[in-house]
């Protein structure tokens, strides 16, 4: 089955707001500043992302970056933990520090009047953390508690085990971001200091400011706060390649104290730079996202009533990331749910999407752009992602064209390239002991 590229100028015209058109500056030290003025509310979102995620954890010390993220804002060369707490709390600000495989991100939203002191505070935290011993001890206990909570959570157990199986042998994508209890308990202040010294540098930083502050002023303040940071660029991170599974495999994690079982079922997919990325995006949307879970949701939730949630997620990344299907089902329905996932994959690979399905997903994804870029925090996240993957400042404008260029053949080829029940890896965690 084939189709010509779909163009929908009427739709694009109707759905587009003004282009983002962010301002981008590269400082002499290599730090990138992206700014965008908005005036919806008198607030500003500041996002500082370092290319220093958990994939850069030292060999045998998975969890180092996560613990660093819990401690980095607990004191600097010139501020105590209490000073920082007071500066944030008195302004109603929550500083969120997130760690993904590749990024370590400080992000917060503040009132526009507070923008300058808040950016100065975040810059200080990023550049000069003091990492006090007593704070490390306290946060270690919190991380250990969080790991124990994860160990008692079937959804987390299923997802983390799936990643470990898809990326075996200690691969950075297969490791738990928080690490393990024995590693966390062994980590020392020196480990955190070394990690910060090794991976945090201005060349790795993208600072994004979105909100009720003019772009010129935002750039000027950011340059003042971050421009004086000098440090050589770290060596590029080398990741082992990811291999696709050659056979079907299943792991069951019995958790008989639970009421519901969680299924994580997946494949190694593609990199973000793969030319087929947009075909994969559309295929995955139709398969496991559109409305309530795409085809998977239609079959498993709507028609068979087996699950409260089922969906698939594509995480195309620096290397080949996972395409993972997740479902929460009653223990009695685990086998039927897995069989239904198998059947839906077989049907997709054999018969492909219909032109209507592809068109619906395309219209949805293009039409959702203004909604996805409505808030300051959402725009900041979009700009960070665009900078990380080198998508260009006009990515929001080009995105509809990129999606429009995908043909039905492209989307169906994407499904055939990766999805195959005979090579699926899946994990069941919950009150389920396996098929008799």
């Amino acid at each position, binding site marked *: 089955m084939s189709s010509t590229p779909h163009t929908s100028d009427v739709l694009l015209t109707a759905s587009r707001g003004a282009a983002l058109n962010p301002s981008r500056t590269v400082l002499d030290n290599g730090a990138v500043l992206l700014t965008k003025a908005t005036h919806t509310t008198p607030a500003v979102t500041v996002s500082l992302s370092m290319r220093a995620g958990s994939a850069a954890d030292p060999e045998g010390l998975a969890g180092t970056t996560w613990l660093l993220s819990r401690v980095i804002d607990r004191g600097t060369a010139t501020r105590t933990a209490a000073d920082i707490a007071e500066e944030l709390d008195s302004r109603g600000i929550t500083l969120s520090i997130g760690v993904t495989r590749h990024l370590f991100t400080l992000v917060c939203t503040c009132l526009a009047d507070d923008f300058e002191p808040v950016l100065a505070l975040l810059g200080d935290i990023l550049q000069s953390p003091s990492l006090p011993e007593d704070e490390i001890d306290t946060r270690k206990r919190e991380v250990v508690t*969080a790991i124990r909570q994860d160990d008692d959570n079937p959804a987390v157990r299923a997802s983390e085990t799936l990643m470990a199986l898809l990326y075996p042998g200690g691969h950075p994508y297969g490791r738990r971001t928080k690490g393990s209890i024995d590693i966390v308990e062994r980590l020392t202040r020196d480990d955190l200091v070394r990690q910060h010294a090794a991976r945090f540098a201005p060349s790795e930083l993208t600072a994004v400011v979105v909100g009720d502050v003019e772009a010129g002023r935002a750039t000027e303040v950011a340059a003042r706060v971050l421009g004086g940071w000098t440090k050589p660029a770290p060596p590029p991170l080398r990741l082992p390649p990811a291999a696709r599974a050659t056979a079907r495999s299943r792991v069951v994690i019995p958790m008989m104290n639970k009421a519901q079982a969680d299924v994580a079922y997946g494949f190694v997919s593609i990199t973000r730079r793969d030319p087929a990325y947009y075909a994969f995006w559309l295929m995955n949307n139709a398969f496991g996202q559109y409305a309530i879970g795409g085809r998977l949701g239609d079959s498993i939730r709507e028609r068979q009533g087996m699950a409260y949630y089922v969906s698939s997620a594509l995480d195309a990344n620096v290397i080949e990331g996972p395409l993972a299907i997740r479902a929460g089902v009653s223990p009695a329905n685990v086998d039927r749910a897995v069989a239904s996932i198998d059947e839906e994959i077989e049907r997709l690979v054999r018969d492909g999407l219909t032109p209507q399905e592809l068109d619906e997903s395309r219209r949805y994804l293009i039409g959702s752009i203004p909604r996805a870029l*409505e808030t300051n925090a959402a725009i900041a996240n979009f700009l960070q992602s665009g900078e990380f993957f080198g998508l260009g400042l006009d990515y929001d404008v080009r995105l509809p064209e990129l999606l429009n260029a995908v043909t039905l053949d492209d989307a169906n080829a994407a499904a055939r390239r990766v999805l195959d029940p005979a090579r699926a890896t899946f994990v069941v965690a919950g009150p389920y002991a396996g098929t008799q």
Partner: protein
Amino acid sequence: MATPAEARPGAALRATTLDNGLKILIQEEHTAPLASVWCWYKVGSKDERPGLTGVSHWCEHMNFKGTANIPRDQVKGIIEKFGGSWNGYTWIDQTTYLETATRDALDRMLFIESERMASCLYHPDDCESERTVIISELQGGENDPDQLLDQELTATSFKAHPYRHPTIGWLPDLQTMTRDDLYGYYRRYYVPNNATLVIVGDIVADDALRQAERYFGPIQPGPEPERPRTIEPEQSGERRLTIEKEGTTAYLKVGYHAPAATDPQFFPLLILDAVLTGAKGLNLWSSFRVAPPQRSARLYRALVERRLGSSVSGALMPTEQPFLYTVSVTAADGASQASVESVLLEELDKVRTGGITEAELAKAKAQLRARLVFDSDSVTNIAHQLGYYETIASVDLFAGAPARIAAVTLDQVAAAARSTLTPANRTVGWFIPLPVSR
């Protein structure tokens, strides 16, 4: 009837009531080419009688499954064509449905909501299929010890008032409820005189009102739904519960009966909660997605900084009738449970007898002021707030929130602490993990 009100500075709110009793709130927001429509019903789990617990939430699920003029297989796709999202939720006082999409979807959003109000099908096969979906949702919630404890704490705190049962319902009721139970409930409560329609976005208010009148005007009103009359008797002594179950982590919750949103003590108590655990804002839809600013809050310093808890949180939700103020602690790995509880109760007792300081009052007000701004960052969030407050009390309560917060005094906070945080008014609940046998 038009009652202009200011829901937030600079934003004019247009309020109208149609002849059939439907309230309509419209606010123009021209910051993005989007519109958000919410339809709110004054029906939640407190309106359920014994044997039918969970019926409000189950009806919410059924109301996404086709109507007289929207075939079952065409429900999905109408809003997606406009890049939109849709959803709904049910809680103790309310059931609500929303669509947010590009502004050109307004007509379709209003059409869907009018269909949902008047013409849902409740096909018997769909009712049966949804029974297992909802039981799966319930079981997913039970997987979380914190959620399980919350459910039991609420059930123990209330002896008489229907706030005591969980919104998702009790499992035996979900196993036995019939299609007729569901449909009868739907017809009783889904009437225009029990609803509020909210439209916010890049629209022209006059045009939006005309469109809303066209779709909703012909819907006939129904008899005024009966309201629960039960008033929870005053609690006369501390209550306790312990759940012992296999797990890895201990959780503590302390719940106090707390005033309704319209009570003069509500905003002082909101300030008190900010002092204890950080300000959350006033938006059930968005506030809890980001942790509150709490590093300098009393309970964070007393529990988390002293390695007794790995997290602490407080929850005071605006509700129609008196509900609960709940403080939750996740015990830190290795911490003594007795110490966690005694330190928490000591801190609560300290604020009950000593009140808060001027500096704490000022900080709490600053936090709440910022949170109210952050809560209004999208058409979806703004529309939620208008409908939420109109449903539990009045939209004027939301419009007046900044002024009420600013006016709270030290004495008012002290009085709210004295009357709420008494030992006789509290229920203490523990989840104690037993060793996991695998």
